[in-house]
């Protein structure tokens, strides 16, 4: 086993492990077959599992997700790829009205074990229609589970949990992290959905992050260490189920909370987390909750503009420093 693996390769590895384990797992999506995926996240799957289990589709997002739903309702476990998360809007009916509601409105008659994988987020200069972080869209819909890994081992572990879940999971792979490297996942690695990870221990401030903002938060924490600011970084890993307990437990010894989101400030997941902490952990706080999120503008193209919009190590470091001075 290699010492390190890329996030990109971990996606294919995570899917392959589940397909070997369970013959009812099938994949569908645009360019996922012989082409190996536009982000090269399905490389090798077509060769190993063949066209019956790795199905190329037309550019038809409604058909992809709608068919995945019908298939999941009738005995197989589809893993559907929506290439860029922006394109979830093209099949939003299925995420907002069909998949999350069908169990409920049929009085529990239907099980929908499906995964919708998608490349989320900015940082690569793809412009406003290929760069959004849209996990907050899914968060508004009761009935969807939401995973968003930040490192290769979690990609594999969360993929295992997502595919084995009898509930529908939207799986956000961050396109800005595809080239990043990390420790490979051990055999049989499963990361339970709704289990946050403490990726850096600290005593002065709790920094809650997700996917791309985890490395940003870690970099900020390292930069602040020489200033005697000890930041604890929590990788939320999932938005639903939401691990509020780990956040409140951390606040018991840090008493300060910073939330770092890539989605726009308006309606971001951090607002839900902040309101929960205000509701249930107000006594734990010695300072206001600070949310750092993307600006409420469409993602611009040029690097210099994009950097102004998305949270950066500089902006996170600066905001934590200010909060510590409160």
């Amino acid at each position, binding site marked *: 086993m290699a010492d390190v693996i890329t996030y990109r390769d971990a996606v294919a590895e995570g899917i392959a492990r589940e397909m070997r384990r369970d013959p009812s797992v099938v994949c569908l999506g645009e360019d996922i077959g012989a082409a190996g995926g536009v982000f090269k996240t399905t490389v090798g799957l077509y060769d190993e599992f063949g066209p019956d289990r790795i199905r190329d589709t037309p550019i038809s997002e409604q058909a992809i997700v709608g068919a995945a739903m019908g298939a999941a309702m009738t005995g197989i476990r589809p893993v559907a790829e929506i290439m860029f998360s922006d394109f979830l809007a093209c099949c939003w009916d299925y995420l907002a009205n*069909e998949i999350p509601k069908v169990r409920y409105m049929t009085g529990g008659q239907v099980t929908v074990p499906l995964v919708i994988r998608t490349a989320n987020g900015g940082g690569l200069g793809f412009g406003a229609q290929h760069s959004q972080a849209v996990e907050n869209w899914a968060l508004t819909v009761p009935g969807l589970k939401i995973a968003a890994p930040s490192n290769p081992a979690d990609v594999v572990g969360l993929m295992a949990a997502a595919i084995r879940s009898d509930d529908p999971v939207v799986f956000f792979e961050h396109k800005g992290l595809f080239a990043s490297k990390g420790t490979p996942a051990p055999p049989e690695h499963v990361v339970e959905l709704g289990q946050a990870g403490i990726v850096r221990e600290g005593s002065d401030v709790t920094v809650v992050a997700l996917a791309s903002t985890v490395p940003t938060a870690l970099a900020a924490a390292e930069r602040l260490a020489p200033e005697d600011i000890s930041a604890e970084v929590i990788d939320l890993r999932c938005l639903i189920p*939401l691990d509020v307990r780990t956040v409140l437990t951390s606040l018991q010894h840090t008493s300060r909370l910073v939330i770092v989101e890539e989605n726009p400030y308006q309606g971001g997941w951090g607002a839900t987390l902040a309101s929960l902490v205000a509701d249930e952990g107000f006594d734990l706080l010695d300072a206001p909750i600070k949310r750092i999120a993307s600006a409420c503008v469409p993602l611009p193209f040029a690097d210099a503009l994009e950097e102004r919009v998305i949270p950066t190590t500089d902006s996170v470091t600066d905001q934590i420093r200010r909060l510590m001075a409160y």
Partner: protein
Amino acid sequence: MTGTSTQQAGQLDAAALLSLYEQMSVIRRTEKAAHDLFMSGLVKGTTHLAAGHEAVAVGASAALRPDDYVFATYRGHHHAIARGATPEECLAELMSKATGLCRGKGGSMHLTKVDTGMLGSYAIVGSHLPMAAGAAWSAQVRGTGQVAVAFFGDGATNIGAFHEALNLAAVWQLPVLFICENNFYMEYTPISSVTPVANPAADRAPGYGIPGEVIDGNDVLTVHDAVARAAERARAGDGPTVIEAQTYRHYGHSRTDPAKYRPDGELEQWLERDPLTVAHRHLTQLGIAGDELAQADSRAEQVVANAVDAAKNAPDADPAEAFTDVWADGGSTWRT
């Protein structure tokens, strides 16, 4: 009433046809009961009645296997009953009762009975066509020989999901039947005024390399035979079929629609070819006596009267049900 499921095209005998007639009679009376219960304040929300469409649901269901999958629309009472739901379960659901098909969480537009192959009624127009394609794909992957059927209205043919589903079904050669109930009105507007082809479903099918057939949707025998042929084709691996069954709804689009936009005489013309009347004529020609038909109607009347009573007397939906069935563990917890 699924005893004819192994019948092939053209093989329905008089006894089988009488059984289908009785089933249509049950559905017609259930729809009337739903209407009356609504008017007396015992059904809330809205209802979309399918009186007039019975031959499509009953003829098609009789040509399917019990383990085939059916997906329907918000106008789906007739499909639910043709597919094995009882009038009592359906009316109880409409009346917000604990004994309803979905225990009060579905309502008129979401009648579902998975264990008899009724995989749901979906109230976003056209959304279930890709689902039916997916169920057919699942059957293909598992090698079960099952087919999936999507029943939909003429209005769904101008939705993107219709076109995406047909294309995918054709390119993957899926065992799926797309059955359009063309009642000539999408809600309040004539379909012809917003569609550039005469037959909104069947005329589009060749564009996807799929056979498209227009049939008399008020003749239960015609529907049965067309669906039996298409299902046979699908099971043989020859892919999807589009069937456009021309029919007519006796009521307006929904409870609040008196259907005043219909030209004078149009309803009366269709009533002459009412599915029950057409089946009645077939049965008379096959030598079924008038008293046998009257007995079938009488049995249907009794079934529905009993269903109304049972549904009225059933307990109300349990408020605790509001917090069950979001997740597979039965609960709705979203956080720690």
